[in-house]
């Protein structure tokens, strides 16, 4: 593993203080009604979440932002920042993602001085951008000269591994079950990355009705350990 990949790997750590720890992105709604209750049902939920929501939003934008960075087309990046924000109709999920994006940017700026990070921060401060983790992550990966495919794959890994950690606590599952799920999920991440490479801009923002509705409904879940 080269040094730069190791640096990106640090950003994928689910222990990174981004606040992702506090967000289930609708998973908790399913846990409350006992639809997600064990290793098997959680795996299925994660599979749908990644293949039918994440690839069309964060995943696709990872790729498009990487390509925009290659062309130094910053305007396009700011447009995707807005797109990601306005397509996220469930308020908690939207605000949670924004918070995670903001914290990840703060962490990134403390570690790296890639100029685009400061540009993003400046726009956020001026309320011209919102902050999104997939955009910040891509900026770091690009700055570290990690390939586009790896950038996408590692982003997907990072997003899914923090959800596994959250599932382990919330369902709850044993730590071993968590490790098993993550391991079994590797081929799904590879597949998701390959799908993302084939998507076009017209595929942006496709949501699965059930997932989205559960993310909205989380606002009305009474006892909760997650903010989304």
């Amino acid at each position: 593993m080269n040094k730069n990949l190791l640096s990106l790997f640090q950003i994928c750590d689910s222990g990174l203080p981004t606040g992702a720890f506090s967000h289930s992105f609708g998973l908790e709604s399913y846990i409350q009604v006992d639809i997600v209750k064990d290793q098997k049902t959680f795996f299925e939920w994660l599979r749908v979440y990644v293949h039918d929501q994440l690839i069309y939003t964060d995943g696709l934008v990872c790729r498009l932002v990487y390509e925009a960075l290659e062309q130094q087309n910053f305007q396009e990046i700011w447009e995707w920042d807005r797109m990601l924000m306005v397509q996220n109709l469930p308020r908690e999920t939207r605000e949670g993602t924004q918070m995670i994006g903001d914290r990840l940017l703060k962490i990134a700026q403390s570690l790296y001085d890639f100029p685009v990070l400061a540009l993003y921060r400046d726009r956020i401060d001026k309320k011209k951008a919102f902050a999104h983790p997939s955009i910040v992550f891509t900026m770091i990966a690009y700055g570290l000269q990690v390939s586009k495919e790896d950038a996408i794959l590692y982003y997907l890994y990072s997003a899914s591994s923090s959800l596994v950690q959250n599932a382990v606590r919330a369902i709850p599952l044993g730590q071993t079950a968590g490790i098993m799920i993550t391991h079994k999920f590797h081929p799904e991440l590879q597949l998701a990355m390959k799908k993302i490479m084939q998507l076009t801009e017209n595929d942006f923002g496709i949501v699965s009705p059930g997932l989205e509705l559960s993310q909205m409904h989380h606002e009305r879940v009474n006892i909760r350990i997650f903010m989304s």
Partner: protein
Amino acid sequence: MTSWTGELSLDLEDRKGKTVARNVFFQGAFKVMRPIYHDDTGKVCYYLLNPGGGYLDGDRYRMKVTANKGAKVTLTTQSATKVYKTPKGYAYQETDIVLEKGSYLEFLPDPLIAYENARYLQKNTIRMESGAIFLYTDILTPGWSPSGKKFSYHTVQLVNKIYFDGKLAVFDHIKLSPGKQDISGLGFMEGYSHIGSMIVIGEQTNAELLDELYEIILSQGADMKYGLSELVISGLSIRILANSTQVIERIIFECRRLIHEKWFGMTPNSLRKY
């Protein structure tokens, strides 16, 4: 590609408290019936209809509606939108709606029914100014096939974009491809057959309204799943999964009634068509 199977454009303005058409144009397989005034508020209601009875292979429909300053309008359809099988090219409909300051426009089409092997793409683009109010609903049914099999259509794709004072504020994209997805399963329709959506944008939106809408939906006591949430701008969206058009229509009607009562101080008429 400049030829349209059906084209319709409506330009509406407020004339001394009554909304009237400044310009009406339609051609091909798209028509609008005579304006109807359901009450004495000056709000006009237009029923859109598709004289062909349904959308066929490669059909392309375009609609443009402008609600000028202070205009108040209800747009609905005369019956369900039916999309028949499209072996060669998908059926397409695009709608552009402009709402100027102080206007109110509600677009309440009947359900969409996609037949076996139908492919359909719908794009709605709304451009509104602050101070306008927009209310939109749609209902997607599981379609229809001779064998009675549900979800036999190929693809239904619905895209809604709402620009508020020139900036994109809502992007809503649903694409159902039952052949490629476990459509009844977790994350998709979750055992239900119908999906309803409602988007409302208005400066008066607040937490109290969301709580009341939530109570109204709950009080229906129907077998359904729902979610509602505030948008980036002052407004909200609602999604409902249920097993019949009627359940979703009732919820939509009740939510719309509450909003009309709170924001306009009056109960809306039913849009009875049959």
